[in-house]
């Protein structure tokens, strides 16, 4: 036991003299955690949208306004024609194009329901799915608000129209923030990288300098050596874990507010 303690002590002495290593194991890792924590977001935000409004009516403008006011989308200038929508998508200026047909207001007012076309840049299946899901939800929401208003005007109860309501509740990550999902995964990744690298390097260093052979001829057994080489890095790993959790939880709290 005393031998193990001595080996651990020796390893800490090595570390104390090697300021570069200490810096390397703390600062870049925290920097990486922060950059990755911000960059590794699979959330779909700021999707550029262009609208081609052939109807140019009061209702179509109201629909466009409900999309424009949503912060999930970056509203691009209106397009004149379908060809222009297509060109903007080709150029990559927009990822989604919404085409409102000429008879939009007419069909809505007649009660038959209107049609709109959604042109989606589907290169990345995942993000295009999510983005078109969002815009679909906005349009549906606008449509049901419109229906409710119409029903109220006619003196009907909207509840009669749709007898079912679905109430979704999101558990564990109520704001659906991808950071909450990514940060724990990131901690696993970085801790694995740092601790395996450092403990591996410290043994290789002894080999390189030839001091490993010197240790072999002392009463220190391999088990003592391994314990002495791993325990310090275990402690460093715990220390980094604490920092990561602190950063992660701090960020989580900031996001909650």
């Amino acid at each position, binding site marked *: 036991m005393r031998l193990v303690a001595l080996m651990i002590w020796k390893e800490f002495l090595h570390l104390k003299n090697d300021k570069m290593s200490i810096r390397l194991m703390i600062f870049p890792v925290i920097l990486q955690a922060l*950059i990755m924590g*911000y*960059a*590794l*977001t*699979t*959330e*779909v*935000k*700021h*999707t550029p949208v262009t609208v081609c409004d052939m109807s140019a009516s009061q209702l179509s403008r109201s629909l466009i306004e409900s999309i424009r006011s949503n912060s999930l989308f*970056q509203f691009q200038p209106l397009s004149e024609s379908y060809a222009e929508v297509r060109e903007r*998508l*080709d*150029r*990559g200026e927009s*990822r989604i194009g919404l085409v409102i047909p000429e008879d939009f207001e007419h069909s*809505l007012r007649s009660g038959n*329901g*209107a*049609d709109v076309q*959604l*042109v989606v*840049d*589907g*290169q*990345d*299946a*995942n*993000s*295009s799915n*999510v983005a078109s*899901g*969002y815009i*679909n939800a906005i*349009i*549906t929401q*606008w*449509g049901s608000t*419109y229906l409710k208003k119409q029903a109220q005007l006619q003196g009907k*109860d909207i*509840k*009669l*129209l*749709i*007898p*079912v*309501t*679905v*109430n*979704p*509740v*999101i*558990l*564990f*990550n*109520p704001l*659906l*923030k*991808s950071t909450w999902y990514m940060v724990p995964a990131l901690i696993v990744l970085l801790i694995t990288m740092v601790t395996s690298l450092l403990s591996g390097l410290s043994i290789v260093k002894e080999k390189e300098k030839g001091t490993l052979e010197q240790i072999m001829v002392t009463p220190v057994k391999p088990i003592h050596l391994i314990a002495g080489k791993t325990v310090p890095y275990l402690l460093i790993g715990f220390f980094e874990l604490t920092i990561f959790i602190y950063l992660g939880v701090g960020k989580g709290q900031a996001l909650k507010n």
Partner: protein
Amino acid sequence: MLKRLYAIVIKEFRHIMRDWQTLMIILLMPVLMMFLYGYALTMDLIDVPVIIVDPSMSSEVRTIVGDIDATSLFSVIRTERVVQEPAELMKKYHAKLIVRFPSTFAKDLRRGGGGADIQVLIDGSDSNVGTILKNTIGPLLTRASLDLIKMEQPKAITVHPKVLYNPQQKSALYFVPGLMAIILLMVSAMLTSLAITREKEIGTLEQLLVSPLNPAEIIIGKILPYCVIAAIDSVLIMLVGRIFFDVTIAGNVYLLAATTAIYIFTSLAIGLLISTIAANQQQAMMIVLPVTMLPTVILSGFIFPVKSMPVFLQAITCFIPATYFLEIIRGIVLKGIGISILLKPVVILSAIGLFLIFVSIKRFRVKL
């Protein structure tokens, strides 16, 4: 001049051939990576486990449950009568979704006038999965319930989606061109920097410098073999993509080849620059990984959309060559667009490449 260049190219090829294990890794790694990414990176959702809570055990609910189970997205794993702690239930059975029907559901639904409320509890830990589940289950339940009482759903607007560029929504079409950017950078930047620092390490670079060869000949001669390897790799990637993942090139193949050549050139310039900074192979590796590979994988838009990043990180992405190459290669392979639209990224990519090669030749000469 050409004869001397030829000699140094042959010398470099001999180095490569002698180290045939590394050569095999270089040639097989792209294929391996493609299979790994191709099968592991799919984010398609299939058979999400669902738990149903139905106190009444009515036939109406059973029909709706059948509708949920019939979709490829959901798979009903249990039906419970009473539940105290939904979150505990979700953890216990690893379910992602709990659908809770009220005990009077069938009666409320038939009576009309509202009140048939279905509660859906969604595991939101993976935000994208949560969003997709939330957007899918609501309309599915509403339609299934309305079908039961033979009621048309009043709908104001019907959205007709049209998916461009990747109509079948296959993730392979997106990642194969992306992988090309990563692998080419890895092969070109890493191998050239290692090849030059190796000569430094064993001291043969000085011997080369005192020979009749001029620095340009040494550099070009050392780079050319890796150009060839990178070109072989890119053809290999497109072939594997074509055969195993059905990736077809929508645009002009020659334009793709030309722009890929520009990208390889830029990556080689990065490798060259690193080799002028690093003193030995270990240092070269230590620089290559954090300075080129990591930012390229994380920040170029290879996996994570650039548009979703904070503004200061978006600014960094402007300095990563792969960002432009990804725009170009995805434009050609998926969108099938031509040079008129891609002119801007092509010019920027070439400018970065020229700048880097200029700096590294300058630094290389200073060392003499």
